[in-house]
Each structure stands twice: as structure tokens, then as C-alpha cells.
């Protein structure tokens, strides 16, 4: 067996919790550092405590959405509905707390379940009815958008935002600061903690659980996974449900941040989330992707937005620059693969 002996020289995959190849992490992380250094040199207002905290906070909602989409994209799927499902979850949370006067934790649960349910429906439509993910989640995107408008219309007789007037505590979920209470000099809002907490959970799910393993397996070779006796349809449904759960969390977060549920919000958020995932090195053809990469991708987007604003670069150019970075990130990834 000469050939098999030769293969002993191959390198085993990394075993960190974020399980990935070091190269991609370095690439994205390096890009983030470069962007940071550039803006720090270009403006004295960039590298201040308040502004860095601001960037962290600005990443929270998009970051959580992107975490959910990461799982879906690793299975070689796509989820276009995350933005409007987020809005719908914000709306159900707001209605639970502000209209039905449920306790806040219960209201949050309603939001999370709303997201998860929408995701599970996506999953069933994709895995059982064999509708392509693009189409299925496009449909859900419209359905969720419609429902987010229908709910206030049914309750108040007209489409309008729902406010958390009687629940000042709800806003504290995002904007309160547990860290600030402990270390007065570091008023990092809870939103940032939630983002990192969610990322840890996501990384654990992806690297250490059966769920994560099958997510990668399905994306790597769906037919082989099926032939290995794994119920691909069920696991796929779960992947979309988990993606939806993260959208639900983002919904609770944006409602808390804005102290209201805005029914018209959410369109376009899915593209930012997908961009973060892609910049983070997750392959749209499936099988490959990391939570850390997605997190870095989300930070790159919010850092760019913030830095270009601080420099006063005309906003039209911000879109152009972000677009170039998305394409560049994917192209570098292709080059890296080819080099292997």
C-alpha cells in the first residue's frame, strides 16, 4: 500500500472550537486589522473608546443575523428571509409585551419562537417539498414582511409601530451595561455581550455537536450524507430552524434597541448578513465555514460603515467600497483554494 503510506504526511484539521483553517481566519482577521489601522491613522476620532464600543454595538444585530445564515450557507443553502423574519419577531415580541402585557422573558420567548417557526417552515418547504432554498426563503421573506404589517393593522386598525412604553426595562436588554456596572470605565452595552454569547453558542453547535457535524456533512456532499443513513431532510429543517432562531434573537435585539417594533424595517438586512458570512470565508458552495469568520466579516462591514462616516467619505462610495470588498474577499478565497 504505497500510496496510503504517503498520505501520513497530510496535516490534520485544526481542533479549535472555531474549527477551521488558520489561513482563512488570518486573512479575514488581517483585513480587519488593516482597516482598523487605516482608519486610526486617518482620523483621531476613530480609535476612541466610545467609537469602538459604538462599532461593537453596530455589529450586534447584523452579526446575530449572520450567525444564523452561516449554518444555512454551510449546507450550501441560502436564507433571504432573515431580515423580515427579524422584523416579524420584533413585532410578535412587541405585541406580547406591550399589548398583551406578558412578562418580558415570555415576550422574548415569543420572539425567539416566531423566528424558529419561520425557519422551520423554510426548512420543511426546502427539505420536504424540494423547493430550492432561494425560492423558498424568498417566499418567506415576503410572507414575514406582510405579516409584520398585518399584525399591527389587525390590532390597531392601521399599520403603525408598536412601542414599549410601559416596559422601560425592555430597552435595557440591549442598551443596559452589565459590564459597565462592574467596570464603570467600560460601558459596553449588553448587546455586545449577547452577540458574543450567541457566537459562542453557534461555534459550539457547529464544532462540537452532531448538529454541526451534519450541517457540514450535508453541505460537503448531501447524497453521501443521505447514503450514510442520516435523515438529511430532518437535519436540514433543523438547520433552517436554527437560522430562524437567530433571526428571532435579532428581532428581540432590534426591538429593544429601538424601543419599538418598526413594521417597515428589515428589507435589505439579509444582504448585509450574507455579505458578512461571505467575507468571513464561508463558501457558498457549502461544506466550509466558521463562526469566527462570520463574526469578523460582520465587524469588517460595521467598521467600514463607521470609519467611512467618520472620514466623511460620501456615502454613495461606501456601497461601492463594501461591494468591492465582498468580491475581493471571495476572490482571495478562490485563490487560496487554487493554491492548495
Amino acid at each position: 500500500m504505497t500510496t496510503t503510506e504517503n498520505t501520513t504526511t497530510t496535516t490534520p484539521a485544526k481542533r479549535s472550537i472555531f474549527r477551521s483553517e488558520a489561513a482563512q481566519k488570518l486573512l479575514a482577521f488581517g483585513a480587519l486589522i488593516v482597516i482598523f489601522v487605516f482608519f486610526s491613522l486617518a482620523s483621531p476620532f476613530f480609535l476612541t473608546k466610545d467609537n469602538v464600543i459604538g462599532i461593537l454595538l453596530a455589529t450586534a444585530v447584523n452579526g446575530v443575523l449572520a450567525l444564523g445564515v452561516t449554518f444555512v450557507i454551510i449546507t450550501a443553502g441560502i436564507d433571504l428571509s432573515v431580515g423580515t423574519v427579524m422584523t416579524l419577531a420584533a413585532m410578535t415580541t412587541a405585541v406580547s409585551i406591550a399589548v398583551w402585557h406578558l412578562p418580558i422573558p415570555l415576550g422574548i420567548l415569543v420572539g425567539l419562537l416566531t423566528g424558529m417557526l419561520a425557519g422551520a417552515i423554510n426548512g420543511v418547504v426546502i427539505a420536504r417539498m424540494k423547493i430550492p432554498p432561494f425560492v423558498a426563503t424568498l417566499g418567506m421573506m415576503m410572507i414575514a414582511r406582510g405579516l409584520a404589517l398585518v399584525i399591527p393593522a389587525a390590532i390597531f386598525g392601521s399599520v403603525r409601530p408598536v412601542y414599549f412604553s410601559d416596559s422601560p426595562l425592555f430597552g435595557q436588554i440591549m442598551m443596559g451595561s452589565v459590564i459597565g456596572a462592574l467596570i464603570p470605565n467600560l460601558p459596553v452595552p449588553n448587546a455586545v455581550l449577547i452577540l458574543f454569547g450567541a457566537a459562542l453558542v453557534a461555534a459550539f453547535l457547529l464544532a462540537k455537536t452532531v448538529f454541526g457535524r451534519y450541517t457540514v456533512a450535508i453541505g460537503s456532499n448531501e447524497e453521501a450524507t443521505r447514503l450514510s443513513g442520516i435523515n438529511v431532510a430532518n437535519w436540514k429543517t433543523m438547520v433552517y430552524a436554527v437560522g430562524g432562531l437567530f433571526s428571532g434573537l435579532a428581532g428581540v435585539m432590534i426591538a429593544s434597541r429601538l424601543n419599538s417594533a418598526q413594521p417597515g424595517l428589515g428589507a435589505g438586512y439579509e444582504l448585509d448578513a450574507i455579505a458578512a458570512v461571505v467575507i468571513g470565508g464561508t463558501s457558498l458552495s457549502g461544506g466550509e465555514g466558521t463562526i469566527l469568520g462570520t463574526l469578523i466579516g460582520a465587524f469588517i462591514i460595521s467598521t467600514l460603515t463607521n470609519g467611512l462616516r467618520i472620514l466623511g467619505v460620501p456615502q454613495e462610495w461606501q456601497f461601492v467600497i463594501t461591494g468591492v470588498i465582498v468580491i475581493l474577499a471571495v476572490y482571495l478565497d478562490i485563490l487560496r483554494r487554487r493554491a492548495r
Partner: protein
Amino acid sequence: MSDVLLVMEEIDKSFPGVRALDQARFELRAGEVHALIGENGAGKSTLMKVLAGVYSKDGGRIIYQGKEVDIPNPRVAQDLGISMIHQELNLMPHLTLAQNVFVGREPRQGVRFMLDEKQLNAQTQALFDSMRLRLDPRTRVANLTVATQQMVEIAKALSFNSKILIMDEPTAALTEAEIEELFRIIRELRAKGVGIVYISHRLEELKQISDRITVMRDGRYVGTEDAAAIPIERIISMMVGRTIYESAPEVPEHPSEEIVLEARNLNRGNVIRDVSFKLKKGEILGFAGLMGAGRTEVARAVFGADPLDSGEIYVHGKKANIKHPRDAVRYGIGYLSEDRKRYGLAVGLDVEANIVLAAFEKFLGKLGVVNSNKTRETGKYYVETLAIKTPSIQQRVKNLSGGNQQKVVIGKWLTADTDVLIFDEPTRGIDVGAKSEIYHLLNQLTQEGKSIIMISSELPEILRMSHRIMVMCEGRITGELTAAEATQERIMTYATQRRVLMAENGASGDPGVQEV
């Protein structure tokens, strides 16, 4: 030995437009290697996929260990102790070896959904050790050669402690040494009482390894014989259901002296070194050599698929500037790739569309609208003249057998008015009956004045078909033989004529012609 482990009887299975299995049957004893053979499309793989739970049968019974069983999905098959190594590799390239071997059966820790990666790697290591495979369980599958992946598939199948192991063409991608190792493992398993189903096209191999042979044809059971007793010719005639003229070499008509294609001093890096040759009208020019000798590279360079560093190509005596396959097509050169599915065919399209694909402009009307009457006629014409077995020209090409797919590719290039056809391994993966049809077709083409370059790794094929033979080794042409001079020994001598050896021989004149 006489312990019957499995009986499949009256198995029916239909796919849209095709009756894949028609009252098929099969029997397997514990501790035997049972070869299952037949032409492509005979239903071997389908029958075994029914057993492995990949397809559900339309009718019939599966009796396993004396009881009738129902196998609706792969999981049930695995639980029963039936595993199958599929023809196409079925590994997850992004996962490690250990993760692949135990996918679906990962050891857990603590809470049920948490993986125990340490235990997983240890189990896999133990399994590899027992197979004498020196592999790191933590290697990613994507980093392995195809042959190694194949061994991993076998390891995976063994890890189920299967009572029945089905192998569909397991040796297709393996080297001789690897095949020996595989056979050793198969014999060990047989000694342990495992029933092994072995699907292969390599008839010599079957005589070596199997105890009994069952032949299928057109989805039906033909017969079961003792492997030791039955001669190969008998097996072949059972497979094709008719006697075919095997081995009688076609007497090559001497082609004209007109040169249609000439290559002068082609060079590309290390893979093509100073290659020159001439192709005459109506000739089959064989290209022999070992794997990696550079034959495919020369063909691709001539066809414009890869760039040349230097060298000239002449078509009908005029210098040709071929930078891209579409230039080659304009000069009347067609290339029929080794990997038909990847490079030669749009397998999702139907027969008609594939045939007209390379010459689409010919079928456009004045306004750029496709003249579908004309395409249909052309499709029908080639289906008839090339005897392509297909229910209709609207059949999707992926549903055809390998031999018929090859014919579709030929039809495609004929439609494009090519007069030089480069065949790269034209009969790879094609069964015996279809092979002889392809040979027939090649001869017919030369009689019509087409010129053919045929790359083949099968020496009998080269010897039987070629007017002249170019032998390559390590990127250079090491010898040229006429049909009269050529023998297997001579070709092998040239094919192993490595640079180092030539130097030792003092590169005196023509070393290869000396008898070995």
C-alpha cells in the same frame, strides 16, 4: 459455504421510461465472494442499490437470514448489516477521515448531542490499524488521492461489522498494489463469514477473487456459475447474449499518404517534450503509454485546451494557429475526452441537444431562431446511423449507458464536420458488447475518410485498432511502430523508456526495437 445468507427474488424496479429491473434475482452465501456482472445498464448497480436501501423496489422479495425484510432506506440496511461501497465516491471532502467513517454513528459524550472527537479518532485509528492502513484519522478527505479515498470507503463499510458487503467497481481507481491489498482484505472478510457482492467489469479480476459469478442482462437474471469452472468467453457471451468477435484483429486498410495533421516539436513544461507526429488521412494513430506519459496532455494541446510553450501544428499542410478549442473545431478537429460526463456531454440535456451542440450555428435560421426540424432530423439521423440505444432523441443523456453516451459524443463531432477525431480512452467504463460496437464505428469512420488519434491504456485495443502506434513516456515520444511491427512487449519497452535508461544505453540508434 452452503449457508444461504440472502435471497432476492422477482425484484422489479422502474424509472421513468426505463424498466431497470425485471424479475431480477440474486443469492448470496455467507463467506463467499459473489461477482455480479453484466453490461452497463444491465441493472447490477440498481439491484444492489435496492438491497442497500437507496432505491425502493416496486416488487419482489428480499429474504435475509431466512426472514423477509423491508429495506426502505440506507439506515435500515446498515442496521441489518448490509453496507455498500458505491461506484461514485461518497465521502464528505470537508470532513476528516474519522468524521467520514463514523458519520451518523458518532460517539457522544455527556449530553446526547455532544460529539466525543477523541473517542471518534481512537476508534478510527483502531479500524485503520486492523486494515493495516497508515492514515491519520484527522486528515481531511479532500487532501487524499482518489485511491486512498476508496480505501477509506472500504474502511467505512467494514466499520459496520457488516454481514453483507457490496462493492461496486471498487478497483476502478486503484493501482495494482492497492488492488492486491484490497483482495487481501476481501479474503480476510470471506474467512470471517462475510458475504461479499463484487461488481466489476474486469473479468480477469473476477476469476481471481470470486467464488461464484451471476450474470445480468437488460435488468434480468441470466445465470449463476462457479467462477473457477467457467471460461471468460462463456461469461462474455452470457453478458451480451450473442457471440461477439473478440480478439480477431481488424486488418487495417492501408490509409492514403495524405497528411491531414502534423505536430512539430510541441513543448509544454515537463509534460510535453519535443513531441512530433503525423496523422494520415483515413488512419487510426494509436497513442500508447503508461498513465501520466503525457498522451492526454498532447491531445489537449493540439485541441487548444491547454497552451503550448513552443511548437507548430499543421492542418492539411498549412500552419494552424490554435489558441482555443473553438479554433480547433474550425480546423475540423474534435476531441472526445476521457471524462465524458465532465467535458464531453451536457448530461442534463437530451440526445438531440447534445448532438447539435458543437455546431449550433448550422441550425440557426435567418433570424437566429433555432430550426428545430433540422436539429430533430440530425438527431434522428445519428441515433440511427450510430445505433444509439435510446428510447427517443428527447431522452436525457445522463440516463444512457456509457457506450451510448460515447456514441452521442461521436455524433456531436460528426455534426460539427470534424475530420480529425481525437479519442481519449474511448472505451473506458464501457462494457464488452458496446466496446466492439465502438471499434466497428471507428473503422467505419476511417473508411469514410476521417482520421483518428486514439489514446488508450489497453494494449490489446491499441494493437487491434491502430495503423500506426506512437508510444510516449515522460512527455516525449519514445517510439513509433507500424501495425505489423507492434507487439505488447515492444510497446511496453518503449513505454518504459525513461530518460535515465536511454542515457545508459548510450541512446544508440533505436533501442526499443531490440527484442526484450
